[in-house]
């Protein structure tokens, strides 16, 4: 199909979609008039029930905890899948480490300096986010991504070998498995105590919004942070590894 024909087919399809969308929009409550009831109910009971002031985290790690286990394993499987798709093919060989510096595009001093300065604060920020799911807009998923960013800044600072050392596949794999397994184990712990899977069995603390409050919500968020951080480092380092590979007959 020629590019021009393709655009016309697309426009026709878009016109159809727009018509259906407008039709659907007519039955939707207007923006700003959410009819409820689920959001209102959870907002009314969550702080009292869990001692967590961050209701989104309470939904994610408590009311909807079982879904979040699945969500976490989606990321786990994606990291595994990326590693599998990018495995060394027959006939590929790794470039000698000596070539590395020559092939890497030169990084400007400004980028290196900024990356170095930001590494520490970014790691602290990620740690803060991962450990404060119960109080403020944060949680393991956000914290994990920021943590991984902190380590990827090491690569941006021009320290490729240092990045490879801290992101060795064995270590990241083990950490990732620990995070994913920890989450599942919290749920099984509840079962072992005769409760339903992922029941919040830890003491909830006394002050809503304190770091020590909310029982398993904080614990699960921590495990998710570890898993997500490791998964992202694994994915990025798998993609970076590709720059070191020579394919059969290429270049």
């Amino acid at each position: 199909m020629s590019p021009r024909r393709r655009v016309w087919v697309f426009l026709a399809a878009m016109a159809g979609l727009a018509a259906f969308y407008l039709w659907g929009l007519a039955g939707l409550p207007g923006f700003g008039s959410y009819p409820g009831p689920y959001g209102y109910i959870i907002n009314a009971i969550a702080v009292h029930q869990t001692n967590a002031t961050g209701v989104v985290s309470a939904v994610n790690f408590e009311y909807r905890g079982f879904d979040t286990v699945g969500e976490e394993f989606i990321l786990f499987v994606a990291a595994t899948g990326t590693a599998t798709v990018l495995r060394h093919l027959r006939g590929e060989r790794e470039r000698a480490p000596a070539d590395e510096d020559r092939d890497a595009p030169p990084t400007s001093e400004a980028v290196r300096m900024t990356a170095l300065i930001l590494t520490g604060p970014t790691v602290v920020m990620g740690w803060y986010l991962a450990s404060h799911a119960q109080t403020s807009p944060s949680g393991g998923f956000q914290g994990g991504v920021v943590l991984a960013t902190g380590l990827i800044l090491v690569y941006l600072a021009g320290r490729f070998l240092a990045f490879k050392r801290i992101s060795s596949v064995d270590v990241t794999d083990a950490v990732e498995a620990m995070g994913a397994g920890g989450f599942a184990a919290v749920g099984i712990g509840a079962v072992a105590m005769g409760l339903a899977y992922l029941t919040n069995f830890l003491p909830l603390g006394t002050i809503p919004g304190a770091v020590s409050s909310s029982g398993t919500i904080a614990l699960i968020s921590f495990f998710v942070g570890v898993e997500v951080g490791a998964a992202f480092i694994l994915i990025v380092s798998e993609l970076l590894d590709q720059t070191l590979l020579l394919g059969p007959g290429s270049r």
Partner: protein
Amino acid sequence: MQVFPFVVVVWILGVGLYGIVTSRHLVHQIVCLIIVQSSTYVLLLGVGYVTGAVAPYFFDVPVHTPAVDPVVQALALTDVVVEAAVTALLLAFAVQAHKRFGTLDPQELVQLRG
């Protein structure tokens, strides 16, 4: 305007799809897919919005302050995670496609046989 955010949703969706259809580079196409998926974030957050309400965090506001729906916000989080997973896998496939066929132009890739 009451429906404006929902118009934004379909605009983002349309722009992203147009990018996918006309793309000449696989990585660009993957970015367009991310844009298509971004429209779902706007839709989810738009559906749960309550006029004049605060975010569903009761750290420094009283517990019974009107707040927006936390359920759709949690769903948006799931959405982001799935997008990250999909993007990682697609980028890996793009790397392999480039290794195998020596091109990243989807319209050239169509003409090649696997």
